[in-house]
């Protein structure tokens, strides 16, 4: 079999949910810049609604990624191998800590991946709330644009870092 159920879950978590949320966050940040009027003119309702839906979709995907990561993928990752097992290939955490050159992938990369995405999800939710609550003004008001822009940028940086670390972990000790 090319892909196991476990590896498909990992791909759903990493590629579809995390990757999707990252693309939507980037799109939202670009839209914030591209759709904002420079001359103080009003923004059309359709543009504001599009931005609101975009940020909402990004936040929802990010939350789905964070929750699936914590409650579906992480348990598969941290499963303890039974005594006397010959191969650790099915136990990613044990595999990583068994070698000195990969131990950092658990002690640093996975530890970062456990907690920082939750913070990114909270920030993305704040953006989605502002975009919805103030959809008539968020693209036209410089202050709201600045705030949402910063929150989006921080969320993008965090998700990018976590995704990169996830790639490293999955390269060495994938969930098969």
């Amino acid at each position, binding site marked *: 079999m090319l892909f196991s159920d476990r590896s498909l879950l990992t791909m759903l978590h990493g590629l579809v949910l995390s990757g999707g949320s990252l693309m939507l966050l980037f799109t939202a940040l670009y839209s914030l810049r591209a759709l904002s009027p420079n001359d103080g003119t*009003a*923004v059309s*309702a359709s543009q504001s609604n599009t931005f609101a839906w975009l940020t909402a979709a990004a936040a929802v995907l990010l939350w789905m990624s964070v929750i699936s990561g*914590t*409650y579906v993928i*992480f*348990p598969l990752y*941290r*499963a303890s191998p039974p005594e006397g097992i010959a191969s650790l290939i099915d136990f990613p955490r044990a595999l990583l800590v068994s070698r000195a050159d990969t131990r950092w992938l658990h*002690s*640093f990369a996975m*530890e*970062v991946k*456990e*907690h*920082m995405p*939750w*913070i990114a999800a*909270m*920030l993305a*939710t*704040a953006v989605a*709330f*502002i975009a919805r*609550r*103030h*959809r*008539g*003004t968020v693209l*036209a*008001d410089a*202050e*709201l644009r*600045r*705030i949402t822009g*910063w*929150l989006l940028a*921080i969320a993008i940086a*965090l998700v990018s870092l976590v995704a990169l670390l996830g790639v490293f972990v999955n390269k060495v000790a994938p969930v098969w």
Partner: protein
Amino acid sequence: MNNETDRLSFPEFQNGAAMAAVLAAGIGALAMGLLVIANEAGLFTAPSLYAKAGGLSGRSTFAVFAWLASWGILHMVWRDRAIGTGRVLGLTAMLVALGLIMTFPPVWGLF
């Protein structure tokens, strides 16, 4: 009258709901950081709410509760007010930075 007109009609834009969401995210980040650092320092260990996910399930759930509770309270207090964005942004940036620092594994060795 649409929202855009509303915004232009009032000299003081009622941004309290937005500022509540922003500051609450900062509080949530700080809560996550405090729970992580307290766990690493052996001061407080959040209970495991889902055994297969270990302590992470408790830490993340508690942080989310802190985030939502603070958001609810701030929203109730600020929703009809105009709040200075500079101070809220600065405070939020500090809280998020603290939260991130405390979830950064190399920092745990200091405790």
